[in-house]
């Protein structure tokens, strides 16, 4: 209700009763406040804008929505790529962990074999690696350049 200051109380009571009879709750307020409230409730985005300003506003909102959609698409792609990289590194880390655990188990076994002489462990390790070391030595010697002299062939040592 937006009664005037001069509205007769009897007239106001008649209208209040009418509003209540229609199932509504009468609220009294100044006319300008009513119109602002009605405009806000009916057209929130366009409140206070004339037709000349609505179109640019709608265009701007469209651009903002498109930009947000593109940003979301990029975020989704980046999230997917990030997940793939993370999964790769996790798999690599898991492989390294398994290798290290196997090595640890091997060293523990070696120490058990050494019993009261843990100082023998390095020697046993070398012993285990001996065939491999010999093979590498042989290959190294074979690939070393030689020089033929009057007294015979001399292998150059770098």
């Amino acid at each position, binding site marked *: *209700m*937006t009664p*005037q200051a*001069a*509205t*007769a109380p*009897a*007239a*106001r*009571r*008649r*209208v209040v*009763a*009418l509003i209540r*009879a*229609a*199932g509504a709750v009468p609220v009294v307020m100044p*006319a*300008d406040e*009513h*119109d602002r409230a*009605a405009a806000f409730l*009916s057209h929130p985005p366009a409140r206070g804008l004339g037709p000349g300003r609505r179109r640019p506003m709608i265009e701007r909102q469209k651009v903002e929505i498109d930009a947000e959609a593109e940003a979301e698409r990029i975020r989704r792609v980046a999230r997917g790529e990030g997940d793939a990289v993370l999964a790769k590194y996790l798999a690599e880390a898991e492989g390294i962990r398994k290798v290290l655990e196997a090595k640890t188990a091997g060293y523990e076994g070696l120490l058990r074999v050494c019993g009261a002489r843990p100082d023998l462990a390095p020697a046993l390790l070398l012993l285990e690696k001996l065939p491999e070391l010999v093979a590498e030595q042989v290959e190294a010697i074979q690939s070393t350049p030689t020089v033929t002299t009057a007294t015979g062939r001399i292998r150059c040592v770098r």
Partner: protein
Amino acid sequence: MKRPVVAVVGLGLIGGSLARVLGRAGYRVLGSDRAPVLRAARKARAIAGEVTTLEEAARSAGVVVLAASPETNRRLPRRLARTGTGAAMTDVGSVKVSIVAEAERLGLS
């Protein structure tokens, strides 16, 4: 309080609905609109009677509800002011500033 007769000017979606609900609440409601609309309103039992002019509505009713288009509603207070009756006037438009200003300008109270 004795329920006054209500005249609803304009029996469209809002005016017709209001007339019907007030009739069901026990008000005697008179309608004012074009003849085909009035016939439909009578058939739907939204109104108990008809008034052919705004002046007749003001003389017959204790409350006149303006439920025509906003442009028409703005013109009606001037005609109501000429009747000099004691009917209370209200409207169902969503814009109040202009019609209140017009009522004040006409000295309606």
